[in-house]
């Protein structure tokens, strides 16, 4: 398994996360809503996870540069996954 192959988008607002899930699904993207990993702070508690191949499409649907969302790259280590904030 590659060290890093997915992104997590963490939201400030639950409603925003739910809306984003809807838009992304409507755009035909395979995404997953999950509780924001503990490693990531400052969010409402909901995140959207997707494969890194989808990043450009996700960016078309969601403005990831707005201050109410934060994009993280998942990095798998031996025993846990850490989340690295992505520089935009």
């Amino acid at each position, binding site marked *: 398994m590659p*060290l*890093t192959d997915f992104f997590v988008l963490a939201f400030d607002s*639950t409603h925003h996360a*739910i809306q984003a899930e809807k838009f992304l699904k409507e755009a035909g993207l395979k995404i997953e*809503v*999950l*509780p924001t990993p503990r*490693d990531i702070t400052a969010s409402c508690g*909901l995140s959207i996870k997707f494969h890194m191949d989808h990043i450009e499409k996700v960016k078309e649907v969601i403005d990831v540069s707005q201050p109410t969302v934060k994009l993280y*790259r998942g*990095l798998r*280590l*031996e*025993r*846990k996954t*850490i*989340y*690295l*904030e*992505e*520089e935009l």
Partner: protein
Amino acid sequence: MDKQIDARGLNCPQPVILTKKALDEVREGKITTIVNSEIAKENVKKLAQSMMCDVDIHQVGGDYYIDIFKQKETQEIGGVNPSAHSGLIVFIGSDILGAGDRVLGQILMKGYLKTLLDVCPLPETMIFVNSGVNLTVQGSEALESLKKLEEAGVEILSCGTCLDYYNLKDKLAVGQVSNMYTIVEKLNNGENTIIL
């Protein structure tokens, strides 16, 4: 042996990956990673800490020098022993978590089941009753998490009466069908029972 990684100007996750490689190569010693952005600094620090290393950071102009100290034979935490005999029973009587908005309740339930996988101890048995059986049948968005829980050794039981009532008997997609005797036994003998 000291090693220096100049990761200035590299995009995430490059500085982190280079640092990880360097840390994997040494058994003990100091590695210094140089980056020139606040976010890269935080990311490298996070990696080092998650690998049980001490970190010391100093700033020179716009550059961050991150000294990472790897100890010999760092004891990795974890080694978690999943379910089996945790004595924990989780009783799920609804397909939503908590009372309130249905959409939110479904998201929370999905999130609960997903998170359950990551936290120790795993339940010994999970019992799904009433609309809770919507979670264990085909088309359920929680199916993937439940299958993983089952693979990890968690016993998944769905109330047969309930499956029948909702016409879902032939749609069960994870675990076994159970009856009230088994359910009562499990609940009575559980050391710790969580009812959702």
